[in-house]
């Protein structure tokens, strides 16, 4: 369920590091908690993201959740699919519904984040 090659945060974001590019999304656990997603607010290309700071938000009918950058970097691409079909985020949060791709300042910092196993333990404990 939770890809081994992703790293995770306690705020339920994931990041896939490929060279110095990072793809960021929210986890399946997050989309479940939020319920039906109606809107995703993403930053503009070129925006600088700082670790732990909000990069945008995800809205359901009754709630808004900030998304925090797992790692620092510059936004290269945002997923245009989500503008027209925010429900994709409920359907495929680990795949087609990635949020942003960034050029990572320090790819190695991914090791500070949780592994898939640690994340699963963490959300198991939360329940």
């Amino acid at each position: 369920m939770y890809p081994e090659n992703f790293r995770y945060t306690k705020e339920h974001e994931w990041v896939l590091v490929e060279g110095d590019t990072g793809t960021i999304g929210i986890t399946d656990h997050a989309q479940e908690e939020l319920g039906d997603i109606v809107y995703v607010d993403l930053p503009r290309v070129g925006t600088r993201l700082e670790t732990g700071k909000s990069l945008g938000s995800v809205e359901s009918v009754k709630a808004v959740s900030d998304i925090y950058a797992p790692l620092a970097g510059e936004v290269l691409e945002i997923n245009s699919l989500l503008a027209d079909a925010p429900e994709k985020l409920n359907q495929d949060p680990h795949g087609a519904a990635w949020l942003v791709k960034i050029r990572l300042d320090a790819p190695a910092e991914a090791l500070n984040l949780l592994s898939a196993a640690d994340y699963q333990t963490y959300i198991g404990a939360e329940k």
Partner: protein
Amino acid sequence: MLEACGVGSAEELFSHLPEAVRLNRPLDLPPGISEYEIVDYFRERAGRTAVGYASFLGAGVYAHYRPVLVDTVVSRGEFLTSYTPYQAEIAQGTLTAIFEFQTMICQLTGMDVANAGMWDGSTALPEAAMMAARATGKGRVLAAKSVHPEYREVLRTYALHQGMAVDEFGYDAETGAIDLKDLESKIDGLTAAVIVQSPNFFGIVDQAKAAAEIAHSRGALLILVFTEAVSLGLLEPVREADIVAGELQSFAISPSFGGPYAGVIATREKLVRQMPGRLVGQSTDSRGQRAFCLTLATREQHIRREKATSNICTNQALVALMATVFMTVYGKQGLRELALQNLAKAHYLAGKVKPRFSGKFFNEFAARVGDPESRNEALLEKKIVGGLPLGRFYPELADSVLLCATEMSRRADMDAVTEVLR
């Protein structure tokens, strides 16, 4: 009930309150009075107002006939005593009416989307300014001096604490319309919005289109303000505007010494998520029927809290309903005819009491009268309330008054005004 509550008297229910906070005497207020004594009290006060006087006051609050149907509808308990329509299944009356209201406002203003209403025009304006700041990421607004002076005061109050700079540009002393050169000299790359009112405070149909071009060329938005909604029955809407912030008091909302009124914000599709206030959207229910509900609530205070687009909670639903009924009663032809009558009355008066400004006007205009105080005193003796002395807000216009004539103004009264003012 006392038994079920486990107490001997209702007073005991408060025994847990600390002694220090309790009020140990009765409230210093007279005992309750009967219904007819209440009517007597208010009737006595109502008698010491302008009842029986003809009035030529406008300046943001207009005397238009209120069709009887309006109060018939809003007096129904289902509308009067119902709550905010959060529970859509038992509030389709309110929700449907608001959806119709939103539609009519878009039709009138030429905008893509309108909200369910703001408290009034004066508070809709700062909300529009904050919208523009959010949308452009810029922190300065430029307001025309011909925008209602009290509206500009409210704008400043809100802007001050948002770190938003409010600057002003002038009007042309001859035409009464905005001074485009002044606007051009003052606008810069940091301007989020240019704010223009049309018809403006002086009643002049203003150069909103030209202002929009200047604004857009510098990456700013154009906020169009209106205070006389009846003008929209006849005047081409300013389709170049990005945000419209208006007052609907003219649509069967009693002047009521300043409130309650109903403001509205209308805008382009792309700015909808920046819009404050409630929004009603169309959807379907579990049985496939068309149904309406509040939507995009995540902009609002009860969800976003400190990041809300605004802190507004209660709006003006009942008052907006008055406007909706008014718009329905007059309809496509009626609103135009009503506007034409306003045009005719004001232009009749202006034919005799020369307007100070040369610009085209709708139903109000400024006129030089020498000494407004004494002229208005003389009018009061004829049981006429004269125009607003402009010196109150514009020292340079201290010799002038702002006269408004609507479909309710009588020829005989306008002739009497002419006699006194000439």
